[in-house]
């Protein structure tokens, strides 16, 4: 075992963030840490390399308790590199200077040796042409790739990634994930706090779901995502696979709505054809069935874990009749499209006395395919 964490606890201002974290991490494992915001995922990572000092518990790295008073903290941090959400590059130093700084100062490498290594690492992260650029001349994705190269320059045995893509524009997320994916092939041990669920599912050997100040559930990625055993894990995974809207006829902007659905569909790795069909079904449902029937309604779009199809559910109050049985020319074609593509379509009144229309659009997502 590389790292063993026993009963780790940490509070801030009397509020417990980590209550009793226990975990074992083997050499070469890739652990994704997922969970709702505020459940201590980043604090857990920061405790591992003592950026935060735990209140109690034990962190044993290669049979040494790092919380012992004689721990050489700089040496520990050399062993455990960290990549932060906000890159943390020195703004006045070039890319290559950012990468060579720590190896020269801490590992006492010569300038030539450190630079040679930096150039190799820049090639690894696809930025060999940016060696002399300043951080402000780079995109967010490029800055994060430099930050990863800087971490690798210290030859760490473990890399801790604290939400490495959270500060990035969505268009830049993939380039960083791709670098991390390539790193995974080298066999280095990685712990990654992430909200990129597809990435976590595809890349990780194990996933920790953190909640209530503990590792609430852990297991192999596929098992945890496909068959979560505990209620909060199930609820969390269901939520991230779901989009919720309150739509109002007067304020509705089809293209803004479509953009949100598109982002959701991309995250779900929905292919182009089913994505277009989803857009069509939603436009028909909203513009030609629901808005002529009710001024406002809630809409949930989710991916079923069981059937891998898209589930659409609209709820409204007021007119309790089934809009799919209305007779109007505008809705005729929309009803035909929905009937041809969605099955089943179920209308009813729920326990809150709301009208509820549920549609199932099959063939949305092929689970287990490779990530973005």
């Amino acid at each position, binding site marked *: 075992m590389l790292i063993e964490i026993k009963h780790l606890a940490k509070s801030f201002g009397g509020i417990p963030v980590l209550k009793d974290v226990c975990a074992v991490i083997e050499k070469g494992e890739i652990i994704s840490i997922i969970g709702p915001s505020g459940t201590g995922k980043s604090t857990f990572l920061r405790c591992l390399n003592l950026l935060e000092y735990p209140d109690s518990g034990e962190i044993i790295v290669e049979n040494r308790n790092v919380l012992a008073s004689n721990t050489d903290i700089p040496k520990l941090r050399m062993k455990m590199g960290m990549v932060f959400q906000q890159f943390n590059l020195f703004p006045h130093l070039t890319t290559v200077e950012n990468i060579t700084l720590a190896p020269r100062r801490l590992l006492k490498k010569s300038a030539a040796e450190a630079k040679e290594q930096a150039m190799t690492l820049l090639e690894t992260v696809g930025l060999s042409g940016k060696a002399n650029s300043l951080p402000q001349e780079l995109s967010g994705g490029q800055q994060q790739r430099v930050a990863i190269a800087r971490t690798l320059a210290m030859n760490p045995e473990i890399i801790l990634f604290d939400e490495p893509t959270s500060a990035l524009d969505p268009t830049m997320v993939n380039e960083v994930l791709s670098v991390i994916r390539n790193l995974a092939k080298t066999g280095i041990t990685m712990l990654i706090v992430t909200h990129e669920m597809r990435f976590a599912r595809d890349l990780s050997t194990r996933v920790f779901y953190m909640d209530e100040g503990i590792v609430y559930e852990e297991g192999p990625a596929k098992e945890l995502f496909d068959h979560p055993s505990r209620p909060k894990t199930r609820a969390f995974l269901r939520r991230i696979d779901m989009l919720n809207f309150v739509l109002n006829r007067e304020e509705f902007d089809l*293209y803004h709505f479509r953009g949100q659905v598109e982002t959701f569909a991309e995250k779900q790795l929905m292919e182009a*054809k089913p994505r*277009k069909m989803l857009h*069509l079904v939603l436009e028909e449902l909203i513009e030609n069935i629901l808005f002529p029937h009710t001024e406002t309604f809630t809409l949930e779009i989710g991916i079923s874990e069981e059937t891998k199809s898209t589930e659409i559910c609209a709820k409204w109050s007021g007119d309790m009749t089934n809009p799919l049985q209305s007779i109007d020319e*505008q809705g005729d*074609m929309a009803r*035909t*499209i929905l009937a*041809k593509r969605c099955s089943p379509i179920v209308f009813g009144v729920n326990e809150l006395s709301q009208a509820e229309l549920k549609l199932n659009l099959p063939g949305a997502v092929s689970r287990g395919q490779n990530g973005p």
Partner: protein
Amino acid sequence: MKITMNRTDKQLTASIEGSIDTVTSPDLEKQLTESWDDITDLILDFSKVDYISSAGLRFMITASRHMEDVDGQMTIRHVNDDVKEVFDMTGFDQLLNIE
């Protein structure tokens, strides 16, 4: 959506680019109805249309009926597979002249 129109005598070719949906079909309708006086051969080039919803289909029927009323014809050309699927599922492939 972008429309490029090319008129020669009584033939009008409208090359449409983008989506024909609830938002864009009123604009398509406006531009075509303003341009089709004396036209008896209307060609809609769909090679760059990537999406059509029932709002677009409704106008296709309107345009087709207008051309019938003036003893003319309307032809939709170069329809991609995704758009063709919408024509097929609504039965419009039988109502319209699609090449």
